[in-house]
């Protein structure tokens, strides 16, 4: 069972205010939703967890081993990330992009084998994008790009999956499908999924745990039912939500304040 741990991690961009301030977070297999306002530090946390940004202080541990001591390819075999804004080369096809997910497993000259192709096609299937395989990346809609990127991450066959606002460009059906997929991977294959999300209710409905960030600090962490409260939401977003219970799942649902009464 993979465990991803952030230990007293701090980070500041270019000497400015700290983006992350002494964050400690241990994540076991399951889906953890990372919530918080803009600039709360969600993306910074995800990038540090992926080993793409060295923490200024503290460290990231993967099964107890410091991520900084694992080589790039080694990290890429354990941790996959779906970035928030990714530039994609327009002339490559979706299948070629997904096959790039096999990079950490391939030698210098070894061409992708039948197994890699099967893994890539299965990944495309899982995000409902099999039909996109031969389309060029420059011709895709925002949602199709997003699914292609998720498929690439799946093709990496990692046991840690980091999603930075993965539902941003997706319609409602594909949003729920993606989180169902994440949940399924966590249940069936024991994946650790950490997803930075904006939609509190989507997070509450799907995540095993929620972690709220505010100004670079974790202000609440736990099961949705335990942490989703009006006061936490006010601390995180500066808004007064009303909370009700979902009639079927019993999970909390946050209701937006009436227009003009947000703060």
């Amino acid at each position: 069972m993979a465990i991803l741990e952030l230990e007293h991690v701090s980070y500041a961009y270019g000497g400015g205010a700290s983006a992350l301030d002494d964050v400690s977070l241990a994540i076991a297999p399951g889906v953890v939703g990372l919530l918080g306002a803009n600039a709360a530090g969600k993306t910074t946390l995800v990038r540090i967890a992926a080993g793409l940004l060295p923490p200024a202080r503290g460290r990231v541990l993967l099964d107890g081993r410091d991520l900084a001591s694992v080589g790039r390819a080694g990290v890429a075999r354990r941790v996959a990330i779906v970035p928030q804004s990714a530039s994609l080369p327009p002339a490559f096809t979706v299948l070629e992009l997904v096959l790039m997910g096999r990079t950490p497993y391939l030698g210098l000259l070894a061409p992708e084998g039948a197994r890699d192709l099967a893994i890539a096609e299965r990944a495309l299937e899982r995000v409902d994008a099999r039909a996109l395989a031969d389309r060029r990346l420059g011709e895709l809609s925002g949602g199709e790009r997003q699914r292609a990127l998720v498929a690439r991450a799946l093709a990496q066959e990692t046991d840690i999956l980091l999603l930075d606002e993965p539902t941003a460009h997706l319609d409602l059906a594909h949003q729920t499908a993606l989180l169902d997929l994440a949940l399924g991977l966590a249940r069936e294959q024991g994946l650790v999924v950490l997803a930075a999300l904006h939609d509190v209710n989507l997070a509450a409905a799907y995540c095993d745990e929620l972690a709220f960030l505010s100004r670079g600090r974790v202000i609440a962490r736990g099961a949705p039912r335990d942490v989703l409260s009006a006061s936490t939401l006010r601390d995180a977003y500066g808004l007064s939500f009303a909370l009700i219970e979902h009639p079927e799942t019993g999970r909390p649902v946050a209701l937006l304040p009436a227009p003009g009464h947000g703060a």
Partner: protein
Amino acid sequence: MAGTTQPVLGGIALLVLTGAVAATLGPARIPLDVQGLILASHLPFVHVVPTWPASYEAVLFDIRLPRVVLAALTGAALAVAGATYQGLFRNPLADPYLLGIASGAGLGAVLAFVLPFPALLYGIGIVQILAFVTALCTAGLVYWLARVGRITPLTTLLLAGIAIGAFASALTAYLMYANGEKLFVIYSWMLGGFNGATWQQVAVITPYVLVGGTIIALSGRVLNVLQLDEEQAASLGVNVERAKLGLVAAATLATAAAVSVSGLIGFVGLMVPHFVRLLFGPDHRRLVPLVALFGAAFLVAADAIARGLLGASEVPVGVVTAACGAPFFLHVLRRQKRNVF
């Protein structure tokens, strides 16, 4: 990678054919069949009765063939370096001279022309040596200046290249101005050409072109992944800084070697990669070998035109590459208006 072998075989055939035709041209026309017989007569166990003037052999082996081979090596080196920089910088305007190599080599060459050096050092032309060394030093200086901590941001690299290039060009311009009587030789060198090519020049640059080209050819997959942004490439397991350094070093080595023997030939390194990309798509594993072959064939053809066009007097090959290549490229560009980069 499906369908790489056929285009590569096609490229090899094109290069051999272009080279053979180019070798027939010159004051003494040596027809293709005679060339074949001359070559065959030098093979072991083959006996051919010579039916050609004895001078043909000297012309073919000492003048035509080294020139064709040198042009091919230079074309391959420049085109592959151009493809590498375009891929690395994700910039369609990148060319082999991006990091100030041209200005650096130009400065070295001009120094060799104006300072009282011996013409040869260890049997190698001093112009060639200084051009090669200053080109390498310039690129190395640019890379070193562009480093920020442990990383080398591409934008900084680009700007450092432009700044150092401008500085070297300024020195070159002054040296040319102050040595007006040598303007013609200097300018001729800068425009580039293969007049007086020798086997020795071929032998001197081959190792550098081969080493640089091999490193780049082995990096096809990495170049593909680098078409994403650097952070994505890193998340897919690529050591981005190491890849950048290796690819820049390889492209620099090949370019500096080519420039040292041929001068500053433009257009090949910029357009040949685009042309091949238009025809065969963006996969660098296929692109790099094809770019080498097409670059070689293109420069051999351009050189043949350069020395045949105006009868006895030669046109600088750089003039031919641009004048012939640009319209042809535009034609291909307009016919296939799809996004290829």
